[in-house]
């Protein structure tokens, strides 16, 4: 096969650190090439070099594209050659229409006046190619994340893409949308469009990729051909540089009596009060137990957790919650914390951390009074607390004075966890605790969860990654469309069983209406 891209001996240094060290990447025309590696391995940096974000001259090595050595000075240069990168955080303007977004900066216009007819016609064509039937006038904000991702791809197609780079495209998509996206990549492949897929989800990679390049610590450590029958374990071994035989720590659950019980919990959508986002949910969790809540994105799991945690989501909330047999006052976040509840968010940057502040300032935030006397913060106790958790959770940082925005995703997550561990709740709800985190850090977080359960706390884990739930929980609820549609002991659960519960209840509902 023809080589469309060869990156030769790419070395990129930032002050004090070598981000890429003599990296080679060869991509054949018309293949799906996966780029994997832990966070910080250099995947994004490599793609920034390729797309010209880091202009020619700021790195060593050559980019050979289509047989010619290229020196991109900016993203415009690479785009005009048909190299389009779609970032993890989508770059759509939420309040503009789909059509306007597709041609943003590249408007169909004559003499500066937009030709709406042409915009509409071309948008429709492009949307059809990515399998979207929504009209081009739809406001992007009204589309789900999965469809927004497709709009991004339509935008790439409008620029006559030849090499499509997708950075973690499915990280915020549910199973169904992820499948559709991967199918689309396969379709593109059939039409001769080459893709580079950056992903943490090894099952997706083994499904669609032809070739895999593994990066570790800024070097390309392996190039695997999927025809040879690569197993996920092989990839992981190359990624972490050691065999990670057990992805989940061993544990020996000691489950006690029920600590929290929720009955008939119903939550309405804050803007559309007629919609029940959580519908008559009842569950309980026991001391020392790790309870999982499985379900697809949008099933109402986060909404359930946030509505319990001080009514932080929704309106017209009804139902009862008892903690330790007594009716729990969860009317505000403060009261929920006082009642022994804690919720670590799925979106740590928006809801979890004060990014501009240090580890030291973030860790004690949920229980400031414990490091203060008479309202005056005692810096020494603050430092001790932060240092204790920094060591206990192995937060990789220069010191507690490091600003959290500079930490990697896994370490940010550990700071969020530290905050809640310090608040010392009886029941800890963890919402997608390992999203966007590399394999090594995941294991560390699982270990923390295990130790917490062993110390008698009740842990509720919300996760979209079923293997994770199966690996670390004792008991599972399955949630779909606002309801709990199944309960099973993890020992008897399987991915198939969970999916069956979801699909079956989904189609039952479909027949009802």
């Amino acid at each position, binding site marked *: 096969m023809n080589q469309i891209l060869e990156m030769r001996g790419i070395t990129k240094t*930032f*002050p*004090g*650190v070598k*981000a890429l060290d003599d990296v080679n990447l060869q991509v054949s025309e018309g293949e799906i090439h996966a780029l994997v590696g832990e*966070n*910080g391995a*250099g*995947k*994004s*940096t490599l793609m920034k070099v390729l797309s010209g974000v880091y202009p020619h001259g700021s790195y060593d090595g050559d980019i050979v594209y289509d047989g010619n050595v290229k020196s991109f000075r900016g993203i415009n240069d690479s785009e005009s050659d048909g190299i389009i990168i779609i970032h993890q955080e989508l770059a759509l303007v939420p309040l503009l229409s789909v059509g306007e977004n597709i041609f943003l900066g590249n408007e169909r216009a004559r003499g500066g006046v937009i030709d709406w007819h042409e915009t509409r016609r071309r948008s429709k064509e492009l949307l059809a190619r990515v399998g979207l039937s929504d009209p081009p006038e739809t406001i992007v904000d009204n589309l789900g994340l999965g469809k927004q991702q497709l709009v991004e791809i339509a935008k790439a197609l409008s620029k006559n893409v030849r090499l499509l780079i997708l950075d973690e495209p499915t990280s915020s998509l549910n199973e169904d949308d992820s499948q559709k996206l991967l199918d689309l990549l396969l379709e593109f492949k059939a039409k001769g469009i080459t893709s580079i897929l950056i992903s943490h989800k090894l099952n997706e990679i083994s499904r669609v990729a032809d070739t895999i390049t593994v990066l570790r610590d800024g070097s390309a450590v392996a190039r695997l051909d999927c025809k040879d029958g690569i197993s996920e374990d092989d990839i992981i071994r190359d990624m972490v540089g050691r065999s990670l035989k057990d992805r989940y720590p061993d544990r020996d659950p000691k489950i006690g009596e029920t600590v929290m019980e929720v009955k008939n919990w119903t939550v309405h959508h804050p803007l559309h009060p007629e919609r029940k986002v959580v519908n008559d949910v009842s569950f309980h969790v026991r001391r020392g137990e790790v309870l999982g809540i499985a379900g697809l994105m949008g099933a109402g799991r986060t909404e359930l957790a946030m509505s319990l*945690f*001080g009514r*932080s989501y929704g309106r017209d909330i009804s139902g009862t919650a008892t903690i330790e047999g007594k009716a729990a006052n969860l009317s*505000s*976040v*403060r009261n*929920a*914390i006082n009642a022994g509840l804690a*919720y670590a*968010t799925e979106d740590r940057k*928006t*809801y*979890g*951390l*004060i*990014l*501009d*502040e240090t580890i030291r*300032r973030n860790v004690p*935030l*949920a229980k*400031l*009074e414990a490091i*203060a006397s008479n*309202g*005056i*913060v005692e*810096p*020494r106790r603050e*430092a*001790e607390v932060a240092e204790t958790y920094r060591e206990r959770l192995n937060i*990789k*940082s*220069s*010191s*507690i*004075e*490091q*600003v959290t925005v*500079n*930490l*990697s995703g896994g*370490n940010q997550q550990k700071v969020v966890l530290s*905050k809640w561990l310090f*608040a010392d709740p009886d029941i800890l709800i963890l919402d997608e605790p390992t999203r966007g985190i590399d394999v090594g850090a995941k294991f560390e977080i699982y270990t923390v969860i295990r130790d917490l359960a062993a110390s008698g706390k009740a842990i509720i884990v919300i996760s979209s990654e079923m293997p994770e739930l199966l690996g670390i929980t004792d008991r599972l609820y399955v949630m779909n469309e606002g309801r709990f549609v199944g309960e099973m002991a993890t020992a008897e659960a399987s991915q198939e069983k969970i999916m069956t519960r979801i699909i079956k209840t989904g189609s039952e509902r479909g027949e009802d209406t």
Partner: protein
Amino acid sequence: MSELANDPSERGAGEGRSSLAFLRGHLREYGILFALIAIMAFFQIATGGILLKPVNLTNLILQNSYIVIMAIGMLMVIVCGHIDLSVGSVLGFIGALAAVLIVDLDIPYGIAAVICLAVGAVIGMAQGFWVAYFRIPSFIVTLAGMLVFKGLTLWLLEGQSVGPFPAEFRLISSGFVPDLLGGEELNLFSLLIGVAVATGLFLLSFRTRLMQQKTGIADEPLPFFVVKSVLIFAALVYMSWLMADFRGLPNVFIVMALLIAIYSFVTSKTTFGRRLYAIGGNEKAASLSGINSKRLTFLTFANMGMLAALAGLVFAARLNTATPKAGISFELDVIAAVFIGGASMSGGVGTVVGAVVGAFIMGVMNNGMSILGIGIDWQQVIKGLVLLAAVIFDVMNKQKG
């Protein structure tokens, strides 16, 4: 790509840290102080020594007292992620209210002052209520407040100036600390206060350093710490000596110093302060950590209203009359002072001391340029450019970091 290793503070930790390297790392914090010193030095030379003449220095403090008082409140509003455009109008309104109460209605000035402060707090609450509990953008709420109180000032004064105030009332802004020690040429008592405060601050920072060393979080190199402490000590003693040489420390200077001390303490050492910065940094995360961000925002505006009222009293007392024009466009000077002092538009960043230094930078420039006979036209241009330069410096410095 992990940004961790790119963090300069981390690299700094590994290397030996000279005073100079430390300074480079903390340019943002100390830059503003150096700017003030440089500007003072420039005008001291350009005006042929008039700037630091005892009488002028005293004037400088009197002229800027109300801006400084409001800048303290504004700093907290801005740290919290909001803005208050109404402070100038509130200042004017409270001055008018004081005049009506004291001059027209003959209410004793002490009671009138308490009423005025309370009304200021209520005004702040009324605005904070909409901002905090109904999430109406503070820019809009306080823009409305600015118009409302400008109008109410006119109505209250019926378009006329009202005055004069009783002499005792005027003491807050034109009085001086009496010399209890009976110095002849020099107000010895004032000098003593200055020296005592300087010594107190010196001991306090020494104690803090000892504490920091014990917990291993001291990051100032020793020579830097020594030079800094000695300079601050010397500057304070020198200033109080200069003022003692004129008529002593102005009463309003004592008020200002107390406010700076109290609010510095509140913002940097208390749980209230921590929470305020947390809200400004990320309101959602703060709320989900159990912080009652609505109440804190509400209180911050109430406090701003009260400080604007205090500034209103000081200003009216200084002018010895309440005029319908009082306070017009003061809010801009106050906001400029806070931003020059290193606060961030998006909230979560800034210090009380920075805001005060920012206010004095504006004040020294006003004063110095007036002495040099530069017209009000060019004064505005230069002040505008200084504000822009200060913020550009901040932003560039942050990007570089």
